[in-house]
């Protein structure tokens, strides 16, 4: 069984929600990332979504764009991100790691090579924001051959027909984008999220994670009431911006927020 599937099943048994923090690898400097991944697991993270920095992150808001820029100042490449996962795996063999990023760095490395090295490093799933199922066949095939999951987004604008197509192509879990907009935007509408998650659930047995627009423990708990997993990104990455000059403080700040969210999820169960 894949780590992602195992993670969702064991937490579902215990009636816990899956908490997925997002951080951009190498932000604000490469040495911060792996120790922080371990600390996030200790603070209650169940799956780690590790962002691969890209020069032109079109689907992201200003917070994650700035995180990419901080990481790229240190020339953090896709290969280095994979090396970070390998280093993380040396001490943690059970927490799933999902890479989130854009297609071009993967194109530059080559699909087959990327899938092979990602598998070796201990990556579990890949979410490529600018690769809809229509264009995914080649990469998804390579990932499948290495037993890696291909995670896709469903959006508020996705038609019923598209949701069916996405669910058919997806593995691991389905990631519902909770609002029309970029990462870190405001205006989360829980009622609308609940309705759409219900629609998705009718079409797949895969777990459903919800992200974009979850900014604190309260909104995380609201979303967790209707979803299997909650993704928290920009709210954490804001701490990286705030403390980019004092990277030694980032771990404490990020894990404190994460522990607060974990507490809210567990209290609401």
């Amino acid at each position, binding site marked *: 069984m894949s780590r992602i599937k195992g993670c969702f099943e064991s937490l579902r048994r215990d009636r816990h929600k899956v908490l997925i923090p997002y951080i951009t690898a190498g932000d604000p400097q490469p040495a911060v990332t792996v120790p922080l991944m371990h600390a996030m697991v200790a603070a209650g993270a169940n799956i780690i979504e590790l962002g691969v920095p890209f020069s032109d992150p079109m689907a992201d808001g200003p917070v994650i764009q700035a995180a990419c820029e901080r990481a790229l100042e240190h020339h953090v490449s896709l290969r280095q991100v994979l090396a970070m996962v390998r280093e993380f795996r040396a001490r943690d063999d059970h927490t799933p790691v999902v890479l989130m990023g854009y297609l071009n760095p993967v194109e*530059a490395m080559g699909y087959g090579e990327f899938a092979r090295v990602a598998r070796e490093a201990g990556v579990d799933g890949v979410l490529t924001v600018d690769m809809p199922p229509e264009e995914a066949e080649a990469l998804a095939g390579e990932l499948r051959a290495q037993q890696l999951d291909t995670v896709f987004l469903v959006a508020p604008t996705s038609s019923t027909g598209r949701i069916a197509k996405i669910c058919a192509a997806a593995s691991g879990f389905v990631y519902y984008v909770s609002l029309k907009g970029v990462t870190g935007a405001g205006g989360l509408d829980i009622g609308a999220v609940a309705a759409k998650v219900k629609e998705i659930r009718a079409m797949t047995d895969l777990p459903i994670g919800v992200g974009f627009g979850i900014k604190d423990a309260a909104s995380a708990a609201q979303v967790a009431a209707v979803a299997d997993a909650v993704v928290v990104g920009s709210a954490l990455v804001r701490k990286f911006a705030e403390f980019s000059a004092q990277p030694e403080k980032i771990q404490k700040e990020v894990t404190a927020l994460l522990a607060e969210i974990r507490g809210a999820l567990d209290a609401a169960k």
Partner: protein
Amino acid sequence: MSTSVNVVLTKHDLPDERGHFGPYGGIFASETLMSPLEELRLAYERFRADPQFLAEMDADLAKFVGRPSPLYFAERWSKQLGGAQIYLKREDLNHTGAHKINNTIGQALLARHMGKKRVIAETGAGQHGVATATVAARFGMECVVYMGSEDIKRQAINVYRMKLLGAEVVPVESGSKTLKDALNEAMRDWVTNVDNTFYIIGTVAGPHPYPMMVRDFQAIIGREARAQILEEAGRLPDALVACVGGGSNAIGLFHPFLNDTGVAMYGVEAAGEGLDTAHHAATLCKGRPGVLHGNRTYLIEDADGQIIETHSISAGLDYPGVGPEHAWLKDNGRASYVAVTDDEALAAFHALTRIEGIIPALESSHALAYAAKLASAMDKDKIIIANLSGRGDKDIHTVAAREGIKV
């Protein structure tokens, strides 16, 4: 002359249904945009076959833009060069001074037809921004233009022009603060305001159907030029020359000639300070295939797949990608892609100004520089059509500053 966008082509009837030109093009967009792109594709399919809308567009192109643009024989310049006869397609004489408005008229009409009351655009030099602000004023639409803060500094007059026309100009501070970042920011706006907003992309790039749609709107350049040269010279030209940044004026000139196998085609990129330096924007000459801004095409990127900043004296060519149909025409050999430096473009800028009394845009000067090179090596009975895609008034400060003159 008919300006129907519905050209019947046989061998080059691309893209396919999902927007592919061979391995290039496609739709590489985030999920939120997939349904709006499909809605746009269906609306455009209806539009391109609807005689009433085509008539509306033809009327605007004739009465508002001033089409057809003349095909002008540059007789003195051709004589001085001593080779082939050079004809100039005078897109500089269009309303707003460049070819960009051919496309913004089409897309704004489509937006109106789709019931979208707000249009957004990205711009580099400001020409597409001005062309969008112009049609938005004409149709009474709200207009927001994204522009890199570096470009805003370099193009103050176009920024003011857009504001006069009622557009809001939003400075983009992320990344390299130039055209590619403005495009990212416009995409972010679109994804957020997708219900009421139409994104008017200015070149033949982006996710399907944009490369096809913008090409169709710009193909009027080639259709007119083809009819005009047949009337004037009694035969087809031997070569076409056009500058390529994103590539909309070039594809507009080339496309109606694709099946005319005797007509050679040259797309001219910006070699900046030289192709062997790090300061150029010659995507097809020096780049490699990748995925950016919604399509697969040639890109200027580093070994890790990060997009690199480009350089050209002309802001309109300063873009690290290129339209996917050009990528396909390069690979299949139908068109050739070459590059000329800042200095060569400047020399052509001065030559045309002094010899023909036409001040060309620095973008177009790249095409002129290569046309001059090509003409000199060809016999006198040969014919070249060069696309004079825009006028150079916007560039006189750049040229003066470069030559140490204070205007």
